């Protein structure tokens, strides 16, 4: 086990753009292993490399323990990219790197994601609902975007009057 300490804001790595992975070498394999161990030991369902201090475009997501709906189980994505988005969903999100706070975030309900697996083979998948939200949250981490940058509404503003 190599559980890493989860880095918390205001560490600058969380607001930086991570580097594209050029080759899946020993270092990248080690980062993936550490991400897996760290995610397993955390209360979260997904994690991104900058959260353990590595500015590389690598994410892991596994919502299978949290939801019953159809999902892809454990997804390891190197150089992840969102090709297409559909729908809109507002969901209350938190982040392992921003303790004690959740906010209503607006995201796509369905995403077409691609990237490489841990052997460097291309992957394409279509994720919906909760899994799509998790992937978007992690892919945002690749570019230094936190859920705090995407707050759609205050939790108490359901009654905000429409203005025409």
């Amino acid at each position: 086990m190599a559980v890493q300490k989860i880095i918390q804001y205001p560490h600058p790595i969380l607001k930086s753009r991570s580097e594209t992975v050029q080759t899946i070498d020993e270092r990248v394999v080690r980062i993936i292993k550490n991400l897996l161990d760290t995610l397993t030991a955390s209360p979260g369902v997904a994690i991104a490399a900058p959260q353990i201090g590595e500015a590389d475009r690598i994410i892991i997501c596994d919502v299978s323990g949290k939801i019953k709906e159809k999902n892809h189980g454990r997804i390891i994505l190197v150089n992840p990219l969102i090709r297409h988005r559909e729908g809109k969903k507002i969901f209350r999100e938190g982040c392992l790197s921003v303790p004690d706070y959740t906010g209503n975030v607006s995201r796509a309900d369905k995403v077409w994601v691609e990237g490489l697996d841990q052997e460097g083979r291309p992957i394409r998948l279509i994720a919906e609902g909760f899994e799509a939200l998790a992937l978007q949250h992690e892919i945002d981490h690749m570019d230094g975007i936190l859920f705090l940058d995407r707050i759609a509404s205050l939790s108490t503003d359901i009654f905000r009057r429409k203005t025409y």
Partner: protein
Amino acid sequence: MNRFVIITAAGPDRPGIVAGITRVLYKTGCNIEDTSMTLLRGEFAMMLIVKLPQRLKVQDLEHHFKAVKKSLGLALLMKPLSVKEARRNKKPAGHPFILSVYGSDHPGIVYRVTRLLTSRAINVTDMNTRVIGPVRKPIYVMVLEVEIPEKVRIEGLKTALRTLQKAVKVDMALHPVESAQF
């Protein structure tokens, strides 16, 4: 030793209320911690938990607010908090749920719903109510965020709410707050 105070303030809405209040806090060396502020019709209402600097007494802070209180027409209340009362990260007492209640407006809706919640040790953590619709046929809408303790059976609670729904003649919906840590 840190000392805290919770300030509640209300006054007619206009630009500059937040700046007016926070200016006093800044000038007196107070530290703003958690706040909630909102507009109820034309009235701006706010609550702020503030950390006081070493030598400042609550009475002194009240004195510093005199001018801005007058110019903004504010009603102001300050309640000292102990460190324990002001501490952060209180463990939630249960799972968060949203309860929506709505129907033709009549007296007693809020009381009868919250009385049922209290009887089951369910805590209201956030609440908004509005009267909407035409003046002659107003509709009451209430949304509560509640913490339902582990030991409360949701099905039993839903049955009790359905009974109340008929008695009070309102519509209701209870569902868990969807949230996740990514």
